[in-house]
């Protein structure tokens, strides 16, 4: 028994001291509401659902924080935040905040935190959220846990943030014991979208940015929207069909696209397909690609490596088609189809096409 490997985590479980006096007044749960081009990013609403559970457990309030250039637009957006169960919304409207830039957003966020003192602050792990969270946490000198998949409140009332490590083969639970706020980012689609309650109202607190464009060093020269806006839809599609190396040739990816198209869904693939240049990187599903949470996920010729698994586990139903009955994907799929994807995909496409069009004529 002398050869046991050393534990992965340095154990500091005994380090808990009492929370420093200056942090004792920190209360309430905040969610950063990512608002750009007139829309709230769905991940912010997903986080309100999670934030609500934490706030209830702690017996505190849930607040959204909305930054932007136009006051009326933010007030309108605040309604959606209330309807996703926030008790109040902090609004900061200033022309300087019209387009996201790190400097003014970090300034306003740190001001807000220092003024209103939340104990927990959650942000989406999007490119915007990660850019902002890292800067805000460093300015506040507090802890930030990245890409969490589970949030809970422990017996001592502190945030237990769980995240995958080493490509998802292990999970670790991280605490920010002696600092506030306890900050965490969560990737889109990792948490379920909570129901909204139309008509639900809350409070608004307005905060003045006190910024002037002349003081902001970084200027946005241009914004070039992505051409294929559908690509961004992969994370939010209800039906996703994906292919892996089992497809054997780039041409066979067409079989995946055809099935997705008949089902009105999106398509994607495993990482080697990107590395081989068979498809664009923004169609990659998994740990270093998109996390998806569709109603149906059909995986064809994908082995089910842990890095792929962590991106698809939130699917309601996973149908895996693989020639190898021992493929790891069958450990987490709901339906196991041991067979040749190159034959089964077209058959499935035809069968769905017939059913969906015949019924349509009849109805």
């Amino acid at each position, binding site marked *: 028994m002398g050869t046991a490997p050393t534990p992965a985590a340095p154990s500091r479980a005994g380090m808990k001291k009492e929370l420093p006096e200056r942090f004792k007044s920190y209360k309430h749960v905040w969610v950063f509401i990512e608002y750009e081009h007139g829309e709230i990013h769905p991940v912010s609403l997903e986080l309100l659902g999670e934030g609500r559970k934490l706030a209830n457990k702690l017996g505190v309030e849930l607040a959204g924080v909305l930054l932007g250039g136009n006051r009326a637009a933010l007030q309108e957006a605040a309604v959606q935040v209330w309807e996703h169960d926030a008790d109040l919304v902090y609004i900061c409207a200033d022309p300087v905040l019209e387009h996201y830039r790190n400097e003014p957003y970090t300034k306003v966020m740190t001001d807000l935190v220092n003024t209103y003192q939340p104990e927990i602050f959650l942000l989406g792990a999007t490119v915007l959220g990660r850019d902002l969270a890292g800067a805000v946490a460093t300015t506040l000198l507090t802890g930030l846990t990245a890409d969490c998949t589970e949030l809970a409140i422990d017996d001592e009332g502190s945030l237990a943030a769980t995240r995958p490590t080493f490509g998802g083969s292990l999970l670790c639970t991280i605490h920010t014991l002696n600092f506030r706020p306890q900050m965490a980012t969560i990737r889109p689609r990792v948490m379920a979208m909570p129901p909204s309650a139309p008509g639900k109202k809350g409070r608004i607190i307005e905060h003045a940015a006190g910024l002037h464009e002349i003081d902001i060093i970084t200027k946005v020269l241009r914004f070039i929207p992505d051409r294929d806006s559908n690509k961004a839809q992969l994370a939010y599609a209800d039906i996703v069909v994906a292919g892996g190396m089992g497809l054997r040739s780039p041409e066979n990816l067409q079989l995946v696209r055809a099935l997705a198209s008949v089902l*009105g869904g999106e398509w994607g693939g495993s990482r080697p397909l990107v590395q081989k240049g068979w498809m664009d990187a923004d169609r990659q599903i998994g740990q270093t690609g998109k996390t998806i949470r569709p109603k149906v996920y059909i995986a064809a010729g994908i082995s089910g490596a842990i890095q792929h698994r962590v991106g698809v586990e939130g699917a309601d139903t996973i149908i895996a088609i693989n020639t190898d009955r021992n493929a790891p994907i069958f450990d987490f799929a709901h339906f196991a189809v041991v067979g040749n994807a190159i034959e089964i995909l077209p058959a499935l496409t035809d069968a769905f096409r017939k059913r969906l069009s015949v019924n349509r004529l009849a109805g």
Partner: protein
Amino acid sequence: MHIVVCIKQVPDSAQIRVHPVTNTIMRQGVPTIINPYDLFALEEALRLRDRLGGTVTVLTMGPPMAEDSLRKALGIGADRGVLLTDRFFAGSDTLATSFALSQAILKIGETWGVPEVVFTGKQTIDGDTAQVGPGIARRLGLQQLTYVSAISEVDLAGKSITVSRRAEGGVQELKTALPALITMLEGSNEVRRGSIGDVLRGARAELVTWNAAAAGITEMGNCGLRGSPTVVKRVFAPKARATKAVPIETRERDAETIAEDIIAQLYATQPALEAELLRTAAGY
């Protein structure tokens, strides 16, 4: 121009093994590599240097064996390698890491000239937080440019830089002042192979090795475990799914029959699905 590139030595994660009984990570014998994302940062730095003149200093914080990564970076074409190593840094989270690295960058600036640009990778493949770049930018008061896919202009006289960066739903073109911190997006360039001369030089070069004191760090409370607000409380294996996958019979059946069976079983588990698919197909 002087450019600093931060690189991290990481386990080649494809080969990480987890002990089946104790659920701990078995690092013994796992080969290490330069964090793959950092190579894009290094390449971009070398391109700037080749175009505008100057030197590229690579910096890594890690155990003494992290010197391998510096030698590899020199072999690709970097001019100077600095290893920041001290047992006080053990257990650093991203806040403590960005503290130590930013102190070392200040020291590098005093020694060889203040860098106009500091590069980091987008994220690592082990800690995978993408927090160290922004952390360094804040601590040093550098303009923060994350997820940069292209650098279109550097004006050393006017102290400005123009870049394209990946933003939500599109690409932002930003202009800002130097000095700046750039986290480089993967795939934004093709990483060069070092010349034989560089590889030989890398293998033989004298590296600069600093402990905390040599890097000018006096506030030890900001380093390592003591300087880390986050605490890892528990490491555990993901729960296996309770139920096994339902097999769909495929033996001695043709593809059509298999397809019909899949659809029947799917509709049975999700009764509302058929109606939804019909609505989508009808274009509602």
